[in-house]
């Protein structure tokens, strides 16, 4: 599953952030929960993906004190929201086509 996940982590992270701001650990937990445990990725590799998204202007981040510990909290930008909508519809078209072939 980890191999199959590569290339889709950005879309999944944007999707989780669409629900609201989150820090890295919260994102990993949300991904695990929403995939019912299927997306169990090497957690540390989420950060390089977040940095890449931040550089592209899709997410913004800042330090916040949450539960007595300083955490970097990420939120979706307007550009990130557009990118997410675009990537999501591309993914749905792709998934429908794969399903159609496999059926």
């Amino acid at each position, binding site marked *: 599953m980890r191999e199959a996940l590569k290339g889709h982590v950005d879309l999944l992270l944007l999707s989780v952030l669409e629900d609201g701001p989150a820090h890295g650990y919260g994102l990993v937990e949300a991904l695990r929960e929403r995939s019912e445990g299927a997306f169990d990725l*090497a957690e540390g590799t989420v950060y*390089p993906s977040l940095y890449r998204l931040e550089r592209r202007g899709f997410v913004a981040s800042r330090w916040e004190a949450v539960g007595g510990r*300083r955490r970097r909290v990420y939120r979706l930008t307007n550009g990130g929201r557009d990118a997410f909508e675009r990537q999501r519809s591309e993914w749905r078209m792709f998934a429908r086509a794969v399903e159609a072939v496999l059926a």
Partner: protein
Amino acid sequence: MRVDEYLAELARRLPRTRRRRFLMEAEAHLRDAASANLRRGLDADAAEQAAVESFGDPAVVARRFAAVTAISSVRRASLVALAAVVALVLPLYGIPENTLPAARWEVKPTDIAVLQGVAIALWLAAIVLAALGFGFSLARHTRLVAGALIAATTAVAGFLAVGVVLFARWLAEAPWTPLWPFLGLALPISAGCLGVCVAASLWVRDRSRTLRDALEQD
């Protein structure tokens, strides 16, 4: 492995760019994960061990991280090299012909004029190559950036060598020319620019290797 040991191992492998920020985020993440594992009933050692294992092999995490930061550091390095090459206009333009009335020629010796032409040509070549390098960095072709910056560095080295010969000839023809514009300005500025270009080329070559390794191994 405990959280502290893992962070030390990660710190050893990470590139400098953004290392502090990532280590702080990693620590908060690992402490959160360990706390959650404690709540699930693991003992303190096992809770930290499980948190560290879920975070991933430090070598893999560091490689992915290096690949992400490599592109921005290549871009910065090529911009610094371009700025340094542009700064060569100072020794080229100002010294000593235009700043020192005593050094103005009635009839300039041909070989000095030729050497000046060669220096200008090398300077322009260095600017074009460094600008190409920056352009390649925007297009994320890091290996081409390394090639362009090495070529620009060679042009700057040529500029410096021609400059030294030029000044020696100049002094022979016009011994009244004061030494300070050359020794105090032109030589240090050119040598500094060469140093910056060498450092930027080596840095970019190293970063482009990091990127290649990350792409090949992941």
